[in-house]
């Protein structure tokens, strides 16, 4: 139902639409993303449940940013997928959903997708001088870099972030 409403109000915003096991999914264009989130917020999808990304290295554009919304009145759920190319950035939705803050930082950390106008676009779960983005498919499971593979005898604790920056 929400998909028809979006098509009426924003023709061309929904690139593809699918329904699998009762999960509604729409694929939208990156340029319409912020406008779309604002629109569905007005339509009642006010709880941003989850934001994550998926890496498809063979595909162009390479990433999908996947956002799950929930309508607390009708209990409908909606999955919005935004294809993002490598090196491209995507607008942050923290202005609409404050809870998106950490989810976006995590996507930046683990996939390397930057979010525009995010209040604090830094790494979240990995440490600040970590090299690489672990959830990309080309990042090997054992860590990949020399620091992870060799016993250098140095402790990471020596480089920890200072208290006052």
């Amino acid at each position: 139902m929400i998909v028809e409403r979006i098509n009426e109000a924003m023709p061309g915003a929904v690139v593809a639409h699918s329904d699998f096991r009762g999960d509604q999914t729409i694929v939208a264009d990156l340029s319409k993303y912020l406008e779309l989130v604002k629109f569905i917020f007005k339509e009642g999808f006010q709880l941003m449940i989850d934001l994550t990304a998926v890496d498809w290295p063979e595909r162009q554009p390479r990433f999908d940013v996947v956002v799950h919304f929930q309508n607390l009145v009708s209990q409908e759920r909606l999955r919005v997928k935004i294809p993002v190319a490598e090196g491209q950035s995507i607008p942050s939705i923290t202005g609409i959903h404050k809870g998106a803050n950490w989810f976006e930082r995590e996507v930046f950390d683990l996939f390397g997708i930057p979010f525009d106008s995010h209040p604090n676009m830094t790494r979240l779960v990995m440490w600040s001088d970590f090299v690489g983005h672990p959830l990309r498919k080309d990042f090997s499971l054992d860590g990949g870099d020399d620091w992870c593979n060799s016993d250098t005898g140095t402790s990471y604790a020596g480089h920890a972030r200072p208290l006052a920056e």
Partner: protein
Amino acid sequence: MPSVSFENDSTHIGRMIVNFGPSHPSAHGTLRVILTLEGENIVKAEPEIGYLHRGVEKLGENLSYTQFIPLTDRLNYCSPILNNVGYVLAVEKLLGIQDPPRSRIIRVLVSELTRISDHLVCIGVNAVDIGAFSAYLYIFQVRENIYDLLEMTAGQRLHTSFTRIGGLYRDIPDEFIPICEDLLKDCAKHIDEMESLLTHNPIWADRTKGVGVFTVEQAISWGYTGPCLRACGLPHDLRKVQPYLDYETYDFDIPVGTTGDVYDRYLVRTEEMRQSMLIIRQCIKRLKEIGPGPVIIDDYKVALPPKDEVYTHVEGLIHHFKLIMHGMDIPSGEVYCATEAANGELGFYIISDGGKSPYRIHVRPPCYPIFSSIDEKINGRLLADFLSELGAMNIIAGELDR
């Protein structure tokens, strides 16, 4: 690295920075919060997470669907069965199968037992954090008994791995139901004792009332779910509004608070425990009515055949071998499955490309958006309030960092 330092620039004279965690007795797990204080008032709380990051999602992409179940235990280690159930429901949704009725009832039963133990830990530890030690001792007796029951069913106290795709690892033993009935009587008594120690205790009220007040709008904007959202006044519980595991057929109520402060969350959790006991009683009644039956789906493409069939029939042996070596045939597609865990919505987002392991698996932990709002919640309040707020958020570092 010093744990306390002073900012001495001209604008912020006398501001003190306190490094709370990553290892602190009242930091639940390994949390680090960098607090900027003016006197005893918090000006800024800057959480830093990731000390328990184990790359669960990356590991999941390299494990088979069944092998991921033990990792779900280690997400929220206070309520492992709720994670087990949430995960297998997601895989079952992807496969389009449903487990047998007896398994569904047992899943609800153990889920609610675990919910009680999770709430007990939350309330007990919250009380200990702010200095009320005795309530903890009363309710941890019940928690211990619940863990004994879980040990009896799953063979493990904490890392249960009790569910399997399409059902359960095994049926509950015969002694389970009488012991569980005794436990319910005991549990009600101990929760009453805990309430008599806390609910009308003026010190407890002083330390918790008005701490971390949130409106429903704020809570929704921050992505709150579970008791923290209900304490703000929104009766949103996935067991009611988007029922799974036949929760719509059980009779129970959803308690709500009004202000969303620590005291309201305590009351909501206390009442939820009583409602969970009500559900457990209904489960026991249904188990007696339904009688013995299979607890795992009768489809050897998904679930392992029984051992005697493997040892005596060639078909059973082939099915066992195929399932272990080759794995299940999973359709391509993506599902998001949400369940009501003890602390809110626990979601699993699985993308399958038809292979042996998921193409992408993502866990949506309930406490993650809740903890991200700590600065807005605690700003301007006392350092002592920070501890009671942190305890009532019920943060489990295992699922926070994944």
